[in-house]
């Protein structure tokens, strides 16, 4: 069966996020007040073949932990569902 996976990668709390900080600093100049806590992460999407949803979830999480993220600086949330 084919499953689609979405990996939402975020920098861990306390890790330097210059892209987020720069966006946040630019907002007042554009007329937006009170926007705080801007962070920039990345989203990785892929499809994978597996027998069951649980197997697909495990595979995606392994791939995420071993390659897609560096646990020293990043956290990730992995969402897997049957591909439509």
């Amino acid at each position, binding site marked *: 069966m084919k499953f689609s996976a979405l990996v939402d990668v975020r920098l861990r709390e306390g890790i*330097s996020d210059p892209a987020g900080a720069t966006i946040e600093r630019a907002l007042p100049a554009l007329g937006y007040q009170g926007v705080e806590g801007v962070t920039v992460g990345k989203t990785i999407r892929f499809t994978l073949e597996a027998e069951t949803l649980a197997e697909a979830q495990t595979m995606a999480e392994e791939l995420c932990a071993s390659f897609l993220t*560096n646990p*020293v600086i990043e956290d990730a949330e992995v969402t897997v569902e049957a591909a439509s």
Partner: protein
Amino acid sequence: MTATVGVVVFPGTNCEADALEAVTSLGAQGRLLWHGEADLGDVDAVIVPGGFAHGDYLRPGAIARFSPVMDGVAKFAAKGGPVVGICNGFQVLTEAGLLPGALQKNKGLKFLCQPSVLRVESANSVLTSQAQVGDELSIPINHFEGNYTCSEQTLKQLQDEDRIVLTYVDNPNGSLGNIAGVCNETRNVVGLMPHPERACHELLGSMDGAVLLRSLLAS
């Protein structure tokens, strides 16, 4: 006998010629090691130089770590062979698990290309054996992701085991504990963000990198 230094080249590496020139000027032979080759051949030391290996896609070093040459580098290191990762090479070695911690984006939000003054914190590593603790060396930095970070537990271990080999006198990038370079448990793998190969000739404004590369050649 003349030492032979292998200089690893990934697609996107751009400091291999500087590294070769520096080690050659110090009396060694240099040899480029293409990333697709797992066999390092007969080398006495390995430099993983700076650049943007595999375009730094995903994260600096994340993809380079899977190149066949890194198997060879890991085996060479496991046998006690001296390995130094400079700048992007340091990032590659942390991603490969040969050194602890990670390099995050600079605290000041800027790419930094400037001279920096380093303090030798430990002379017990393949890169610092010919220096003295307390020596101050002027060596340039050239990076965006050079802000060293690790867990509190790892930092304590590095301190307790005297594995922080170089620190910044005036921390330019926010690195935890002013760390500019660290070594592994067996002290034969060292990573640093500054570029000693760019400070080996008086025309370059500093020859302070020579003591580090001489240490590598002597190890």
